[in-house]
């Protein structure tokens, strides 16, 4: 039975990966937008931003990677919504396959597609002068955190994907997620922000996640930021998963 779930998830993931590859819009938004942002911040605004020692592209990259993922999962929600609003979702649900495989197919696609986007953005950053002294373990830790972020945001995206009434409603939910890194340490150090903004920026999840990735890539000690980042991701993942599964079951009421 478990091998069936796995095989069905693989079949459904391949299906939705085809959707990604056949949608130029998805590829443009999820890879080119973050690249444009890198170019804009590094070559236009970066000269006026002081981040202490080091190159600005090194400072900026972790935040842009989070934005890449945040805009990527919007398409996961959209693909799920398209399935639900057309008839194919009901076809799958009335077939003798594991119902969890229907969601896991979308989740697996989201992880694969986002990791590819992230890899492309990192490659562009390298071409722009990004360098890291991180070892294999640190890179694995970075990959692990990014997968955790993707999983958490994907399960969050499943909720509007299942529950939304219109396509606009689906894409609307991701705007705050794309915007959140701007009020964090992703683009500029939080030290220069006015009191309440600084307090928010320092205590929201993006800052601890970005700082952790930045320190890992710079081969600096991570400190307890790392645990805070992981706790945020795991906590968000758990809450989003429970809410998504509840939404999923409610569709059968």
């Amino acid at each position, binding site marked *: 039975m478990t091998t069936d779930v796995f095989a069905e998830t693989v079949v459904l993931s391949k*299906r939705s990966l085809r959707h990604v590859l056949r949608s130029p819009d998805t590829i443009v938004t999820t890879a080119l937008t973050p690249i444009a942002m890198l170019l804009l911040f590094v070559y236009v605004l970066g000269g006026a931003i002081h981040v202490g020692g080091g190159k600005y592209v090194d400072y900026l990259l972790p935040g842009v990677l989070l934005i890449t993922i945040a805009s990527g999962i919007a398409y996961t929600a959209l693909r799920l919504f398209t399935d639900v609003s057309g*008839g194919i979702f009901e076809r799958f649900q*009335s*077939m003798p396959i594991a119902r969890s495989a229907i969601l896991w197919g979308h989740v697996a696609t989201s992880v694969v597609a986002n990791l590819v986007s992230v890899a492309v953005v990192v490659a562009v950053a390298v071409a722009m002068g990004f360098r890291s002294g991180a070892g294999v373990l640190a890179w694995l830790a970075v990959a692990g955190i990014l997968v955790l972020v993707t999983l958490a945001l994907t399960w969050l995206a499943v909720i509007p994907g299942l529950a939304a009434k219109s396509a606009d409603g689906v894409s609307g939910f991701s705007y705050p997620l794309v915007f959140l890194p701007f009020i964090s340490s992703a683009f500029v150090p939080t030290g220069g922000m006015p009191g309440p903004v600084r307090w928010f920026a320092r205590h929201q999840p993006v800052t601890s996640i970005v700082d952790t990735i930045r320190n890992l890539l710079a081969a600096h000690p991570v400190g307890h930021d790392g645990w805070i980042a992981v706790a945020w991701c795991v906590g968000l993942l758990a809450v989003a998963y429970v809410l998504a599964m509840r939404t999923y079951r409610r569709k059968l009421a």
Partner: protein
Amino acid sequence: MTRTPAIEVVGLTKSFGDHQVLGGVDLRVPSGTIFALLGSNGAGKTTVVRILSTLLRADGGTAAVNGYDVATQPAKVRSSISLTGQFAAVDEVLTGRENLVLVAQLRHLTGPGGIADDLMERFELTDAGGRKVATYSGGMRRRLDIAMSLIGDPPVLFLDEPTTGLDPQSRLEVWATVQELAGGGTTVLLTTQYLDEAEQLAERIAILHEGRIIAEGTLAELKALFPPAKVEYVEKQPTLEEIFLSVVGHNGSDKVGTGR
């Protein structure tokens, strides 16, 4: 009839909030028949189909498909059925062939490519097989939809309003497809709001009105409910449908028209 009926529904009720959609539906569909559930929009046809295909839970009553209870043995029910919903349940981004292969793979069948090729030939989709479904006409989409439902030979097939929104030619194509299924021993539960569709396709017809079955039987039995026919002489005028089909030069009508 000694065989278990393909579908047996007793006292089925369902409400959405304060609105009662099904007020105690009783239904018995013999195995291997084409059975039409006839009713106007909002009569509860789709709700019945959704409950029978385990997409929706009933509030009360029992329903069994192929001998399995929909509430307690949903996995067994899903192994016995295929659902062709009100909106063509096809993947627009994939090609027709990829859609068929997808379903065959999900049903863990061996040789999904061969299964897809056979069905495309049978449903006259071979030429369009490599095209994205987004480019298909309504009738082609429906044919693909029904072809996808036949993969794995499920004994019970639900067709929820299979011709709603189709042009007359596509409707005749779908009718011809459904009539072909009848010979194969598949039980088909068809919902429709079109009287002529039920008359053309179904061996037995149940009329669902305001959440209850108000009449059920063969067409002859239903006709017997009315006062005996009296003989009148009326000049035979062609219907607009006949005119339309003869003007556009469609020959599918004799395929369907001679059915009964």
